[in-house]
């Protein structure tokens, strides 16, 4: 790994694309603010802020992400961001189009939309925020909720016999032929933050280079709904979340293989 020069500005400074807002949209200890910063940094590094278009799904990303990142941005109805991103990308292929979606948005109400964008092999980037619950509505069970995890709609803990098993989005995405990149990351430590930045940059590159779909899943803390302190959330991620959702790249290709007659 190349050495990074850590300057005071880099550590405490605000990325150029981060809109200065005098308060935080997010709960104390939530990782979404870090992910907003990460997106800003990556778009700046890639130099695509002028042609970037973001689409935020319903959930805690709905208003805060569009407002916080200084690019063209729209919120989307629940689960429809991949369909909407498809339309923009097809109309303006030169733009860099990405969606930001939570686990209810992508994994439940919008799974059909998302899977069909993958099936069509769209040249898009999706940032999937997995905090194992419905954050905005008060912590109900999501498709990503861990087995045994207590939520407001699984008061005795998620029972796989009645509510099934956690959705492994990054692994699922990697099985789709139109996908060029799929990875799972966290931002719960500086080292992981750096790895996440690299992953996100790679995912955007797959779109910019016209290769295929780029997907990055973030395991993200939700202290209020997990009923845990921010430090305990970090512990929960490193011990419980990663045990269920292993980190790493599940697919990274520079060419989408085509049958001979289509090459």
């Amino acid at each position: 790994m190349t050495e990074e020069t850590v300057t005071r500005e880099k550590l405490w400074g605000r990325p150029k694309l981060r809109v200065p807002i005098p308060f935080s949209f997010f709960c104390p200890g939530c990782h979404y603010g870090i992910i907003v910063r990460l997106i800003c940094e990556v778009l700046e590094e890639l130099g695509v802020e002028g042609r970037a278009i973001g689409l935020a799904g319903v959930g805690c990303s709905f208003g805060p992400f569009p407002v916080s990142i200084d690019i063209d941005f729209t919120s989307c109805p629940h689960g429809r961001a991949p369909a909407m991103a498809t339309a923009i990308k097809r109309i303006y292929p030169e733009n860099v189009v990405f969606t930001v979606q939570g686990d209810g948005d992508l994994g439940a109400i919008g799974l059909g939309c998302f899977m069909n964008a993958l099936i069509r092999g769209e040249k898009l980037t999706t940032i999937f925020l997995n905090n194992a619950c419905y954050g905005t509505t008060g912590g109900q069970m999501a498709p990503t909720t861990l087995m045994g995890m207590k939520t407001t709609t699984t008061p005795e803990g998620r029972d796989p016999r009645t509510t099934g098993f956690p959705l492994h989005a990054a692994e699922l995405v990697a099985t789709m032929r139109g996908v060029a990149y799929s990875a799972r990351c966290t931002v719960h430590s500086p080292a992981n933050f750096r790895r996440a930045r690299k992953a996100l940059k790679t995912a955007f590159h797959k779109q910019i280079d016209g290769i295929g779909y780029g997907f990055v899943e973030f395991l993200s803390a939700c202290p209020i709904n997990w009923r845990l302190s921010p430090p305990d959330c970090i512990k929960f991620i490193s011990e419980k979340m990663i045990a269920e959702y292993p980190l790493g790249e599940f697919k990274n290709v520079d060419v989408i293989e085509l049958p001979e007659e289509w090459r």
Partner: protein
Amino acid sequence: MAERLLIDGNEAIARGAIYGDCKYFFGYPITPQNEIPEFMSRELPKIGGVYVQSESEAASVYMVYVGALAGARVMTSTSSPGFSLMQEGISYIAEAEVPAVIVNVMRMGPGIGTGGQHGQTDYRQVTKGGGHGAYHCIVLAPYSSQECFDYMQLAFHLADKYRVLVLVLTDFIIGRMAEVVELRKLGFEPLPEKDWALKGKAFKGGRRRCYVSAAFSYGGVPPRYYQHMAEVYQKIRDTEVRYETYRDEDAVLLLLAYGSSARMAKRAADMARAEGCRVGLFRPVTLWPFPEDALCQAARRVGKVLVVEDSPGELVEDVKFAVQGKVPVHLLGIWGRYTPQGDIMTGGSGIIYPEKILQEIRGLI
């Protein structure tokens, strides 16, 4: 002279859209409108456009929504059950005030209805809005292939002019009936630039657009949004009401119909005239805004109204509202169909023939 082609209403819709500078179509197959997406999938790539087959109507409506938000002329087409699936997205399009066009080629009935049968049973949903949030869409109801072709151009113009969704409402008969169409490009007044479009801030002088919801767009005060929309809707009511009258000057009975029913009614009016019965026709072209004032005047002058619609009675509600109880309003609804077999499996779909309307006219005069 412009080229003339023998085409059905569906193809006329598709060709009209392309003449209206629409290059992007997002759709999902459903009978009886499949000729539209099929034509678009064939023709749009030839002119640098894009056809995307979505995974459902619920997805295609959002593709249309954001395509419009991105400033492009975009459309989709569907039929009744698919139109129901689009209601959520239509509500969002209304909220975001983006200009788009959706075509509904009606088939009969609620639920799955009938793919192969004609009907006009979406009037209330299309004109009153099936989605949430008290919005309006302009509704154009062509009754010939030529009007399908022309009104698609008009639809895109009106959508851009007022930043609203324009619905073009046809039905199975209009969609699948072939007529000669003159391929003429209509001229309209110039439109303002779409400086609000979402296409990357570098393409707008570095000024970014962030759209979250209408509540945020009007300082977080919902009444201001509704006040603004009320002004837009009033302007549309004042300027865009369209209707056609036929032989109504000396009439003693006024027929009232739109779409394919208006064709039957027009023929029935001629047949009645041949018998010496003075019958006229009033045909609303914009179903929203509904030509209330013009209809009220015409109905009061004539004195008696017969509504003909291939539905259990939806248009008739607007007519009764327009005439304010001052004129008797009669209805010849879907039960007026001639059904030779009387049963759907043996092909007895039926339509309301002009002869049936004439019979009704004789009873009323």
